[in-house]
């Protein structure tokens, strides 16, 4: 599925030390508090490759996607996408950039204006970019719909008259109208039923192949990421805690959190010790030291005091953990099992 036939080119997406903290509503004269959404993230992705970003709610992965697309201004850091300095994007260059990078959001119903028909929504995109004239736009739209497996009859429907799966395909068609080189998919299937999810995932990989798209796919579901990504980055509380090529990550993950995710995804019957304890802490007050220390069965005093840095544990495999060298073994001891392959679940 992840076709490596596409030759990697130069770096298309490059984020350096990106930081984004959202201020909370100030109360009284107290210190303004911030949600540490994205904390010092550095990512790069070569053209034609696909990157999966995995994390739970509140990990900052969606914020990261928005920063890539210039939809959210980072507090600091460099964002370089498709040769464009996204952080200092001028208004006049905005349209040109949009034609290079597009995004598909989680909930297709919310991203379509309920008062516009599918035709209106799609034509508007072309009109805004001054692409083609009336008949040509119509032709392009019909073509785009066909490409995602929908008939032209959907053009006159309102979003409310389409099912989620259909609508998600329309949204993908809309994003591809501008023929971008980069497509960011933020949880593209998590709002869909299992049978529909497969359909959309198939479509995404197919389009990626046909159009030689560079992709960033964000999901909380390791299996989805595994299907679609060449490289995987795992995020926890605004930080990347582990990043590696797909196979390396799924077989040789070293961060206890990654291992917890893998374990949780397998849904093994029985009473194994759950490897991540407790609840994720608030991103407003991330724990000192290693951010995972409150839930990590391996946490030591050092973990509670000193924040670990991303360490290169193998070529292209970085882990943010003081105890990465022994984590797999120690966890295996605790749970009494070897980490499972995620697909072993059912």
């Amino acid at each position: 599925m992840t076709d490596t036939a596409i030759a990697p080119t130069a770096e298309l997406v490059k984020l350096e030390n990106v930081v984004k903290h959202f201020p909370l509503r100030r109360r009284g004269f107290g210190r303004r508090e911030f949600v540490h959404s994205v904390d010092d993230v550095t990512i790069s992705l070569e053209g034609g490759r696909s990157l999966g970003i995995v994390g739970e709610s509140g990990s900052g992965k969606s914020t990261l996607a928005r920063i890539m697309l210039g939809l959210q201004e980072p507090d600091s850091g460099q964002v370089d996408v498709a040769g464009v300095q996204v952080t200092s994007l001028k208004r006049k260059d905005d349209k040109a950039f949009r034609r290079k990078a597009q995004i598909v959001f989680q909930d297709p119903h919310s991203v379509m204006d309920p008062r516009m028909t599918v035709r209106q929504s799609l034509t508007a995109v072309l009109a805004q970019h001054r692409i083609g004239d009336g008949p040509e736009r119509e032709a392009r739209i019909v073509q785009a719909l066909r490409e995602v497996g929908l008939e032209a009859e959907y053009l006159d429907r309102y979003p409310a008259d389409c099912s989620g799966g259909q609508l998600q395909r329309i949204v993908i068609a809309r994003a591809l109208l501008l023929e971008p080189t980069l497509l960011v998919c933020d949880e593209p299937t998590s709002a869909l039923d299992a049978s529909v999810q497969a359909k959309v995932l198939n479509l995404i990989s197919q389009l990626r192949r046909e159009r030689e798209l560079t992709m960033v796919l964000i999901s909380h579901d390791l299996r989805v990421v595994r299907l679609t990504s060449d490289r995987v980055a795992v995020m926890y509380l605004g930080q990347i805690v582990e990043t590696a090529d797909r196979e390396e990550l799924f077989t040789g993950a070293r961060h206890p959190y990654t291992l917890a995710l893998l374990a949780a995804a397998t849904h093994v019957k029985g009473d194994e010790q759950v490897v991540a304890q407790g609840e994720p802490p608030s991103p407003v007050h991330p724990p000192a030291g290693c951010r995972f220390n409150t839930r990590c069965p391996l946490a030591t005093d050092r973990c509670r005091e000193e924040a670990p840095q991303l360490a290169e544990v193998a070529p292209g495999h970085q882990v943010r953990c003081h105890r990465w060298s022994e984590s797999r073994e120690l966890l295996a001891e605790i749970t009494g099992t070897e980490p499972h392959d995620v697909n072993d679940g059912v």
Partner: protein
Amino acid sequence: MSVLDGPKTITPATLTPDSAPAGTVTRRNRTRALLRQPWPLVAGGAILTVVVVVLLLTPWIAPSDPAEQDLTQRFAGSSAAHWLGTDQLGRDVLSRMMHGGRFSVTIAGTTVAICAVLGTLLGILCARVRGAFDEFVMRVCDVLLAFPEMIVAMFVVSILGASKTTLILALVVGGWTPFAKLARGVAMEVDARGFIEAARALGCSRSFIVLRHLLPNSLNPLMAHAALRFGHKLITVGALSYLGLGVQPPAADWGSMLAAAQPFLSQAPHLVVYPGLAIFVTALSVTMIGQGINARRGSRS
């Protein structure tokens, strides 16, 4: 559970999960809304249309000159010549009501229109710009909202003297604030919805986003509010005229007609009943329109 292929026809609203898109609910309700158009909207709209048309055509269709007197025909009841009878100077009540209504409705309408446009623009601007500007405008709103409308109006009239313009001005001073608050709220709500961000991601211009997405999606609650406000303003204008602070004689509006008829309440009740009814029916019609719009909105979201 997340649910997209196929409408979730059977899940009671109480169990609709967070993640369920509004769409599934919307589709069901739209069909229902089509089946059951809110009757207040239809009825209110019909009444208002009649009122407005009559008032527009008044110079041509009014049975007589509203100032024409017949001192021998005072307090006459309904007759072929005077459908609604005559007043204390033998003037035709119907004609006076038609002409008076033009005052009442124009002043209320103009006021609401100005308030709506001004308030909506400021509100949307607040929602778009945010920051200090937003804060400032909202605090100004708070202060103005603290003044009861009648007090502000009386105050302005006392400074500038009673006139149509003063009246409108007096009502606009505080009248724009609810629109600003509402528009800001709605715009922020709409702004936070996915399709605005999607439009940005697709490279749509700001003006396109505001005009084609933000405004149409904010319009319904604003229109409903405007309708409700119109009814309210109609009554307030009448109150000011009633107190002698509004439309000044010899011009008359429904409020001042009521005031003038007060001494004859039991002798010639028609003089009190008809103008009061005119205010009531007109105010009721716009209220119904407002409620209708709200009901339609309510059944959709």
